């Protein structure tokens, strides 16, 4: 007599809800986004400019200086084209995900580059933020819908 077929799958779904604590530094940045402001902070020790800024410099461990605003103009520092579909995707592929070197910042911001054909995106391309409409502004990077090429700039 043979044994029955073994059990090979077992569903045991978990759901876990969490509180995110942004900290003092990143809260400054997130609150700025809700006001269409990109707030950066500079390290008094090494002059590194953080965007988004934490509370202290991870190199010097010094508290960062007071926040100041950047206009958001920048350049694509690297990018990739997302070509595949996946669960939870909100944008139809293909689309461009990029590192944006915002002028005045020492760190790079990750965001979408749209309003341009993916094959036309280049490293070094001048880009600007497209802010969400007033009623969609929030303490999240979703306050910037995406970056797009600066009109008239050399692509």
């Amino acid at each position, binding site marked *: 007599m043979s044994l029955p077929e073994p059990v090979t799958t077992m569903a045991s779904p978990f759901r*876990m809800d*969490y509180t995110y*604590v942004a900290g*003092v530094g990143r809260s400054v940045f997130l609150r700025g986004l809700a006001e269409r402001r990109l707030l950066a902070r500079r390290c008094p020790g090494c002059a590194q400019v953080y965007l988004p800024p934490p*509370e202290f410099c991870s190199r010097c461990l010094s508290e960062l200086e007071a926040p100041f605003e950047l206009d958001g103009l920048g350049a694509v520092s690297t990018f990739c084209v997302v070509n595949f579909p996946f669960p939870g995707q909100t944008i139809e592929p293909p689309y461009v995900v990029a590192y944006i070197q915002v002028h005045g910042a020492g760190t790079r911001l990750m965001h979408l580059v749209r309003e341009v054909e993916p094959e036309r995106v280049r490293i070094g391309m001048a880009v600007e933020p497209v802010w969400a409409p007033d009623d969609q502004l929030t303490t999240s990077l979703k306050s910037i819908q995406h970056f797009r090429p600066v009109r008239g700039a050399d692509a």
Partner: protein
Amino acid sequence: MRDTAVVSYAQSPCLAANRRDDMADILLPVIRAAVDAVGIERDEIDFYASGSHDFFEGRTFAYIESLDAVGAWPPISESHVEMDAAWAFAEAWSWLQLGQGDIALVYGIGRGSLPQDLDQVMPAQLDPYFLAPLRPHRDAVAGLQACAAIDAGLTSEQHMAEIVSRCLASATENPYAQTSGQVSVHDLLAAPYVSSPLRKHDVSPPGDAAAVVVLAAGDAARRLTARPAWVRAVDHRMDTHYPGMRDLTSSGSTRIAAGRAADLAGFAAADVEVAELHTEYSHQEPLLAMALGLNGAEINPSGGPLAGRPATATGLVRIGEAARQILDGRAGRTLAHATNGPALQHNLVCLLEGAA
């Protein structure tokens, strides 16, 4: 064995919920305090080891955020355990035993307050096929253990309330305790059950905090502090994963770890004056005291976990507190115990001594 000692210890206050500071912000002042106390610079530290757990943080590789407080620029020797930081301490101690460096910094950071409901999270640590699907709530397995411990005559609800009363009174002297006070056994026994026979006070209160221990070997330890807390032994043992396979009333893994530690140290748990035990629940104190073979040691003079249980830092706090007894010249020999997993599944024993 290479002589290695705890030379410094610091922690942040245990808070039920810290909604102001991110991981690095909680940790930075604690590292500063521990390092400044022995007058060293960051570049004198040869090794960093830390403990935290993504399931408490709700993010993958969450501990990377804490590295911002370390000043983690290459070259750096750095390691992390996804569990209580007492095991990061064990790793750092082993690393120093290998002679790769002289000074190690160990930190634990944990935020029990980030999961909006620990009942969603804690079943994930259980056997995934035969136990987790039942979704026992966070204190259910401990309730089974407490019930069995009472039935075996190891404790009673009255005795458990006495333990809690004593710990909360001791914690009034501890500025970092999450909860403390003079509470009568009578009042405690009037409280409702949360997981019979456990009442709310029998369950250590989860919260947020960071702890930092600085370890140093040989002459470096002697140079950094007048009275190093020499780590004479560290051992840890684990019981089987499925609680149903265990006798919950005796902690075999603690007993074995204590025996091995005694062999290594040349003295036993019975010889220590102070024991800091990782009692997540009040009924575990007599259970651990028996498994360790304590003989009249003062237990949890800091108030212990029943006065505050910062996730994944609580075990390291026990080591820090046990070491502090020696650093401050209040005890000659102490013991620290740490645990991980449900109902004392995995247990670590550390024996410390003042004399060089």
